[in-house]
């Protein structure tokens, strides 16, 4: 057992211990707290697996944003806990569920141990074709060029989720502002942080977007950092959530997929396929798309967190 494999086994055991805590904790708030810790330890696992971009995305979105969302929900639902806990299924259902879960886990473990060696891989193909875009980060190449269709559809899925959330609003609040107005002490610590951190955060977010062309990073990770800064400012009460009927807000939300779609159709018109980039302009086009995508991702993630409109505009 080398030091590296000892570290990996220890890390896996801590992560699984946290997972068991999330399932079995008494209070939902504690389970959500455990989930934040889980979402921040998983990136260490991803770094060991060689996926630095994924580690960044998991830390930002899986640990940070999902954690805040679930902690907030757990806090709001705190009063309903005791009533619902009484509905726990009986011993027979729990026994069957554990048998089913154990069976699935063991089958998947068997799959892991029986994977073919050496594994099939698309890495050589990805590296060979990277000359088509001129970018150095292979994951960004895959996201923006080789599987650009997936990324375009993902933008649309984000928009659909947002529309789904907005559709829950009571009729009288349609077009209003999401969430309640946050009031923090304007001379307090949270307001201080919300004045100090966002300039740094915006620079860091744009840096992560820019450097994603050649090093780990990218539009999603950068956009999440921007969204987090926006949320911090809203939570400190320095800025109110915008009404969802504002035109600039809706234009920002469709800018990313819109530009992506325009470039795609341009590829169909001028090139030979949907989303085919002309090789001379590939890098500037990709950078333009990524910039629009980052703004849209930041706005969409921020609004997904802000939730259903609860006030008039």
């Amino acid at each position, binding site marked *: 057992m080398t030091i590296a494999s000892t570290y990996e086994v220890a890390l896996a055991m801590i992560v699984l211990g946290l997972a068991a805590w999330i399932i079995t904790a008494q209070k939902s708030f504690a389970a959500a707290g455990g989930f934040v810790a889980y979402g921040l330890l998983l990136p260490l696992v991803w770094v060991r697996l060689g996926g630095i971009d994924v580690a960044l995305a998991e830390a930002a979105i899986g640990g940070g944003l999902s954690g805040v969302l679930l902690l907030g929900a757990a806090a709001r639902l705190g009063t309903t806990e005791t009533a619902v806990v009484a509905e726990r299924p009986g011993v027979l259902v729990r026994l069957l569920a554990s048998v089913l879960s154990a069976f699935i886990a063991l089958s998947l473990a068997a799959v892991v141990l029986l994977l073919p060696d050496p594994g099939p891989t698309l890495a050589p193909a990805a590296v060979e074709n990277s000359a088509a875009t001129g970018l150095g980060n292979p994951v960004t190449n895959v996201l923006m060029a080789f599987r650009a269709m997936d990324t375009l559809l993902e933008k649309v899925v984000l928009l659909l989720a947002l529309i789904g959330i907005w559709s829950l609003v009571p009729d009288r609040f349609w077009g209003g502002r999401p969430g309640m107005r946050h009031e923090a002490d304007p001379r307090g*610590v*949270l307001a*201080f*942080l919300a004045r*100090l*951190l966002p300039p*740094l955060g915006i620079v860091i977010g744009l840096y992560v977007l820019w450097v994603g062309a050649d090093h780990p990073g990218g539009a999603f990770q950068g956009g999440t950092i921007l969204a987090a800064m926006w949320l911090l400012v809203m939570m400190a009460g320095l800025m109110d959530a915008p009404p969802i009927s504002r035109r600039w807000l809706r234009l920002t939300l469709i800018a990313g997929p819109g530009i992506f779609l325009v470039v795609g159709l341009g590829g169909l018109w001028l090139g030979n396929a949907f989303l085919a980039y002309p090789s001379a302009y590939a890098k500037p086009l990709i950078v333009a798309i990524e910039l629009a995508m980052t703004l849209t991702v930041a706005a969409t993630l921020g609004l997904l967190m802000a939730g259903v409109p609860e006030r008039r505009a």
Partner: protein
Amino acid sequence: MSAAFNIMTIIAVSAGAFFFFAGTIGLLRFPDTLTRLHALTKADNLGLGFVVLGLLLQAPSIRDGLKLVAVWLLVLLAGATVSQLIARIARQDGASG
């Protein structure tokens, strides 16, 4: 020279790990929220500081070293702010409860 750097890195990172360990013991053993916050923030800021110091010796360029220091400063800022917020709530709960 690099052997000396490696030894200093190991010493610094071990000191950092010791401080993290001490902070965790404080978190588990101290009686109430305010003392636990004290243990956490003092130990973790020092712990991370020592780890960053050890890694600075291994950084390939000045820019990477500055990025490491920036990480430490941002964690200090986040830790200080969050501790203040939690402490204020804890004091309010303690006064009323």
